């Protein structure tokens, strides 16, 4: 299980490759990347991501451990960035390794649902016409109930 919270960029392809390389314990690897999306019509300068050092790492590790337990994962990787990220930057990724694909897909979705609403990160949209905190969406909270 690998959890990294960092300001620095990372190479999504290289991380996926390294995660999948040399595995004999898993027949399936699933990965997901979250990317800073510009506003419709453009104008977003950056997404500022704040976190709670200490609690963020602990919360992600707890969520990842729960995924490993539920789907008997061979391994899991979570990387989440903080700081100021312009549109197109990779914000975060998850990768899961399991014996079969159904478990790897389900665990990746579980990780994403929980990271969105239970890992202490807050996003602020910075644009030329001002800055605004991104509000949590009811759908994101509701998504947790399916697990």
């Amino acid at each position, binding site marked *: 299980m690998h959890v990294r919270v960092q300001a620095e960029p990372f190479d999504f392809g290289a991380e996926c490759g390294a995660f999948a390389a040399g595995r004999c314990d898993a027949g399936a690897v699933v990965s997901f990347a979250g990317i800073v999306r510009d506003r419709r019509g453009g104008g977003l300068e950056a997404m500022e991501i704040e976190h709670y050092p200490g609690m963020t790492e602990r919360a992600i590790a707890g969520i990842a451990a729960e995924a490993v337990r539920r789907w008997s994962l061979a391994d899991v990787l979570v990387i*989440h960035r903080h700081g100021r990220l312009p549109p197109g930057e990779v914000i975060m990724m998850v990768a899961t390794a399991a014996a079969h694909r159904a478990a790897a897909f389900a665990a990746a979705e579980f990780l994403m649902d929980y990271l969105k609403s239970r890992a202490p*990160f807050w996003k602020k949209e910075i644009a030329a016409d001002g800055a605004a905190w991104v509000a949590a969406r009811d759908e994101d909270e509701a998504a947790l109930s399916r697990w």
Partner: protein
Amino acid sequence: MIEVLYFAWVRERVGRPRERVETSAATVAGLVEELRARGEGHAAAFADTAALRVALDQDLAEFDAPLAGVREVAFFPPMTGG
């Protein structure tokens, strides 16, 4: 003494990321009452606790949770990671 941390718009409204607070409050809700009285910024930050989340020693908690033995309390809006 208890360490109180603020994040996102709670931090902006209070005007600082953290402060040390001398409190005799028994619960989080009691502490919130004391913090509200500290000034306009605090009052604005804590106007609606339904819009806030709280963590005690880095674990999510409820506003009726006891403060006994707690060293670090954090207040923040609902999380928006991912």
